[in-house]
């Protein structure tokens, strides 16, 4: 995999505004403490590769049975990363978790979300989390592979990867709650097959039903928002607004039109594989033909297979498309 692990140790810039934090920090515990820290981590990471950002793992989560929630942010937008998040805590602390205000990130304002995220970080003695930032460039290239990888598959792989990482790190996960937009039953069966020892619940709108999934959705959403705020691109000269990123947003549409390069298309912030992006390139960019589309030009007549053809030419030259040329 091309995942780049942003380990807690690599954060050398911590914002001074969190200095009043009372809990003693060990040298290992350099995990983000608020939304700004998340932004700083995103800024220093590669734009065209996936990466993880993680909290420290609370000791209690290695000793007590934990619940773990999985949710995503930024699935629909035509630009920016899709972020997957997990959030976990001991089952015995579920009521404490509710008090932090963890809920469906979509029902909260940005400010509210960032406040709750800071609370989650403050309670690092029993709440842990990790997010994977899936770069828009990886989304495009995955969907444009010879064997296309669907967005659902990308999503599942990310969720499975995050769950594995939590288990590998020693988190005593016993119950897992997953939010999904696709069919829940099939996804649940897939996860149960990979993690037979876990109790797994996949449900639509799980982020509003289970606070632990709400927590995961907040971690994911705050990360996506901060990534979009701090990311810069060599291809984008002016820092003009790209709007919500949803294809229906006129600001996003205008951004796509104005940053489009006639040869290369869009900056790497954009998901080329979205129909909105494809349509703009179809209509306004220079035409590009890929091998598949080119080779389907008409059908060969049956006769051509029996005609003597280029008898004189040896296979060595045919295989290599080598011909004699006198004229140009």
């Amino acid at each position, binding site marked *: 995999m091309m995942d780049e692990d942003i380990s807690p140790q690599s954060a050398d810039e911590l914002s001074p505004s969190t200095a009043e934090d009372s809990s003693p920090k060990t040298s290992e515990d350099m995990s983000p403490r608020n939304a700004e820290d998340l932004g700083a981590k995103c800024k220093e990471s590669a734009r065209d590769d996936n990466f993880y950002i993680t909290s420290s793992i609370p000791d209690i989560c290695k000793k007590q049975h934990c619940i773990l929630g999985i949710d995503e942010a930024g699935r629909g937008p035509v630009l920016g990363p899709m972020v997957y998040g997990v959030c976990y805590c001991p089952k015995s602390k579920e009521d404490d978790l509710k008090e932090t205000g963890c809920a469906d990130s979509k029902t909260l304002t940005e400010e509210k979300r960032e406040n709750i995220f800071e609370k989650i970080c403050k309670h690092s003695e029993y709440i842990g989390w990790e997010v994977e930032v899936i770069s828009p*460039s990886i989304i*495009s290239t995955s969907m444009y592979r010879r064997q296309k990888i669907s967005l659902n598959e990308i999503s599942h792989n990310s969720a499975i990867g995050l769950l594995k990482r939590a288990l590998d790190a020693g988190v005593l996960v016993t119950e897992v709650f997953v939010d999904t937009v696709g069919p829940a039953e099939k996804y649940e069966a897939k996860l149960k097959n990979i993690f037979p020892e876990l109790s797994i619940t996949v449900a639509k709108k799980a982020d509003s039903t289970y606070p632990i999934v709400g927590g995961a959705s907040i971690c994911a959403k705050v990360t996506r928002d901060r990534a979009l705020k701090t990311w810069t691109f060599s291809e984008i000269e002016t820092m003009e607004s790209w709007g919500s990123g949803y294809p229906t947003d006129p600001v996003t549409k205008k951004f796509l039109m104005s940053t489009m390069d*006639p*040869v*290369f298309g869009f900056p790497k912030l954009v998901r080329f594989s979205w129909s909105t992006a494809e349509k703009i390139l179809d209509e306004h960019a220079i035409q590009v033909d890929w*091998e598949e589309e080119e080779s389907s030009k008409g059908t060969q007549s049956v006769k051509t297979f029996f005609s003597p053809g280029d008898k004189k030419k040896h296979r060595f030259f045919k295989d*290599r498309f*080598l011909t004699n040329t006198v004229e*140009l």
Partner: protein
Amino acid sequence: MAIPVENINFSKEENDEKCIHSLPCKIHFNGEANISDFFIPASENENQEELDVSFRGYPLCGVKVKVPDGYNGFILQEKSENTSKKLCCVRTFKSITYWNWDKKPSKNDPFLSALDWADLCQIHDPIEDETED
């Protein structure tokens, strides 16, 4: 009919050879493009043998190919003067980056295996074509 080629100058080889690319698609365009901002190959290993890049969202795999010893690469531009066609050499090169769509370049690619001819053709001196009628 032979076409004259002008301005062949071997010393014109430039250092930034890496910017000659062969892409697995047809771009219906001739002219300048903002390669340095949009087309930045990356390599996972240190010797830069296998390269990755994306073009229009498509994943490409590339290798850097040296022009065989004793050969030179030329970029020719057509110039029409009056009615006669003329080619003008605008640049020479010693290497090129060959890209495939989501497939590691190998000897199965005609472009790469065609370079075998450079070695093979040295097994004997040029001969006359006997099959001519």
